[in-house]
């Protein structure tokens, strides 16, 4: 593994970004099966249209799982203390998601050094789709 050590992280540092391939119908079909989220809005075009959407769109939890990859490629999952997001916009078919994160705070809890990370996903147009934060132990 060539993962850089976060032990020297300081406020303002950026995590190595994670760029994903465009979302396809296959991506959504596989994720529906693998995640157990079979909501038809993500897999059935006819259902999506009846619900007033132009097409199926990505599960929010797919993008959150991508953000999980951003975190665990930077730090061992055993150091992850919390991880939360707000879903602020829809990720449509064809969107190319990039996950980014940066250190916004450094603090100590019960003798453990921790950093707070601001994390987000953006599509290829630079539009933020998910914003959140995570706390990891150093």
């Amino acid at each position: 593994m060539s993962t850089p050590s976060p032990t020297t992280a300081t406020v303002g540092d950026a995590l190595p970004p994670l760029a994903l391939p465009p979302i396809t119908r296959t991506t959504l079909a596989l994720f529906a099966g693998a995640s157990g989220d079979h909501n038809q809005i993500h897999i059935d075009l006819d259902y999506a249209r009846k619900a007033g959407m132009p097409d199926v769109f990505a599960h929010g939890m797919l993008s959150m799982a991508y953000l999980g990859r951003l975190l665990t490629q930077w730090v061992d999952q055993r150091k992850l203390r919390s991880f939360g997001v707000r879903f602020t916009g829809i990720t449509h078919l064809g969107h190319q998601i990039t996950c980014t994160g940066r250190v916004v705070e450094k603090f100590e809890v019960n003798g453990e050094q921790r950093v707070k990370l601001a994390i987000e996903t953006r599509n290829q147009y630079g539009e933020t789709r998910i914003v959140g934060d995570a706390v990891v132990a150093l």
Partner: protein
Amino acid sequence: MIDKKHIGMKLPVYKATAEAGQLRFFAKSIGETNPVYLDESAARDAGHPGLPLPPTFLFSLEFQIPSNAWRETLGIVTSRILHGEESFDYHRMAYAGDTLQFETHIADIYDKKDGALSFVERKSRVTNQRGEHVADLRSILVHKNA
């Protein structure tokens, strides 16, 4: 609008086991390349007792709750919902083969935009087969009332 009288409602406690095959399928579906999440021997080499559940996978286990009766009780229409927020507080790792118990309740219900949107906050306490506290999950579901 979703009736606030349901605040505090407990969902049936249920247990789910994370299967290694399901974890590998999940890892593949999100394009995971870290062998710790794909290969049990790589996981063991990294000091894990088995394939770890990736950070968001507890949500998938929670989602497998056998009955969606609670949604019907609240009057939630599936085609009208959006996922608003999701968060995890982690206390210890969970691994393939662990049986995880979910104790879930409706923590809050509130409206925005003059009642056009209802927000339902759900919280789950997750423990493993040894009774150890694994994580706390918090979900906000947004319901379009009209």
